[in-house]
């Protein structure tokens, strides 16, 4: 009787484990099947490097270069803003802050992570967008810069918590050794703590960027969604994610536009996958 129970529980758990892999595989296969179909009408290079995204013109023009550049621009902007602030705040929390400030800040970071992206997008739309418009004297505040700033807020909690973890796991005796040699706190952080935790901090950055590149709702609301190749960060752009979200509803199932959106999905999948693998490599390097 007991043996039978063990057997059933064991098989049940096995099924759960296999199911999650099975569903991921199904999603991946579906994505591939629908996405690769677009290459019957457009070549891979025209798709990736084409300058024009007019999916409903006749014949449709399916170049996603403006979308890729839009995504990259917004992501780089967000990285430039969020990495220094995120790593800085991780250093402060892990090394400098007194116990009470540490608690308050960690709670604050967790709260920031808990804000739904649509809320961030909405707040950005009514506060940040007019601000950017006025400060830079632009015809519209719906720009890549606005998206970058808002996404920086979304990347920061990830960066702060993973980087803080990395700093925290640096053996205490490194710090003691540095202090015993007469190093100041800043010298200890800069010359010992950061090099010792560099792979963890890089992983933090990669995970933060991964979050930014996959984000949809906030960017769709505040970047203006113009599928043109951006020349500066102060113009409207459209990202890969926003394109899929905005156009999937109106694409004809089984049409070229529909297949193209799935192909964008593949591109996004590849990018996220590479970022996650890189982050993973850094994290494992740290453990070794």
């Amino acid at each position, binding site marked *: 009787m007991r043996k039978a129970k063990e057997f059933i529980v064991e098989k049940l758990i096995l099924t759960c484990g296999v199911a999650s892999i099975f569903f991921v595989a199904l999603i991946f296969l579906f994505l591939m099947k629908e996405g690769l179909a677009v290459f019957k009408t457009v070549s891979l290079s025209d798709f990736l490097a084409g300058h024009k995204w007019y999916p409903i013109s006749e014949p449709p023009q399916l170049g996603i270069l403006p979308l890729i550049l839009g995504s990259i621009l917004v992501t780089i902007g967000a990285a430039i803003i969020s990495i220094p602030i995120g790593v800085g705040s991780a250093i402060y929390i892990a090394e400098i802050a007194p116990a009470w400030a540490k608690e308050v800040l960690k709670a604050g970071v967790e709260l920031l992570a808990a804000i739904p992206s649509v809320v961030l997008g909405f707040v950005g739309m009514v506060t940040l967008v007019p601000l950017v418009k006025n400060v830079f004297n632009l015809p519209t505040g719906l720009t890549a810069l606005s998206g970058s700033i808002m996404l920086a807020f979304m990347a920061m909690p990830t960066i702060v918590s993973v980087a803080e973890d990395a700093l925290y796991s640096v053996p205490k005796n490194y710090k003691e050794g540095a202090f015993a040699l*007469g190093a100041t706190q800043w010298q200890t952080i800069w010359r010992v703590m950061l090099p010792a935790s560099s792979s963890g901090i890089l992983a933090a950055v990669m995970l933060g960027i991964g979050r930014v590149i996959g984000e949809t709702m906030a960017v769709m609301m505040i970047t203006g969604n113009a599928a043109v190749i951006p020349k500066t960060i102060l113009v409207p752009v459209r990202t890969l994610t926003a394109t899929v979200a905005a156009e999937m509803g109106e694409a004809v199932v089984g049409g070229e536009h529909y297949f193209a959106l799935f192909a964008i999905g593949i591109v996004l999948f590849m990018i996220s996958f590479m970022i996650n693998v890189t982050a993973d490599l850094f994290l494992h390097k740290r453990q070794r």
Partner: protein
Amino acid sequence: MSKIVTKKLNLWYSQFHALKDVHASFEDKRITAIIGPSGCGKSTLLRVFNRMNDFVDGVRTDGEVLIDGEDILNGRTDLVTLRKKVGMVFQRPNPFPLSIYENIVFGKKIHGETKREQLDIIVEKSLKSVLLWDELKDKLNSSALLLSLEQKQRLCIARLIAVQPEVLLMDEPCSTLDPQATARIEELMRELKSNYSIIIVTHNMQQAARVSDDTGFMLLGELIEFGKTSEIFTAPKDRRTEEYITGRYG
């Protein structure tokens, strides 16, 4: 000549009275061992001399610690200068996760030396003085974490020597090493004695007997007896010292 003198030194960790009225005088260019059972306050005493206890929450000290006649316990003491002068070797070798070269020049660099030729000279001199130069001169740029435990501990000593301290504090420097490596580190200590005042904390009485000139015995925060090593180990004056060194407790 006395290098370090403590007068009526008391130390508390919050409510716990860890050092009780310690009076002692540590001589220049000699090795002084502090022995005693675990938790007797010997490491705490050592950490007073370079103010490493400052990092412990709720620590309070009282009394005087004079190094070259200057009280280091008052608020005016410059910790950077103090720690440059009074270096410390830890129980577990703790080279930084940097190259061998960078480990040795670490102290020099943070104290403002940047000239490459100067640093090169210092690296060679420091490694020679811990007898690592021949072994490591061809791999100065490889990671210090790849060294053996003994090499790491030597490197940590070299790293100290590079900043030209006057006092070396050693907190159980051999407790993670095997007997041969321990013997070699002890040999090194004897060699370094001519240039530095060395204070070593150890729970290994044989080590204290082998390597030190003076010995202090501590028990429950008190310095029970302090004197020439030869006398402490052959004719202890206090019954508790005798009981400890004959192995009745500890």
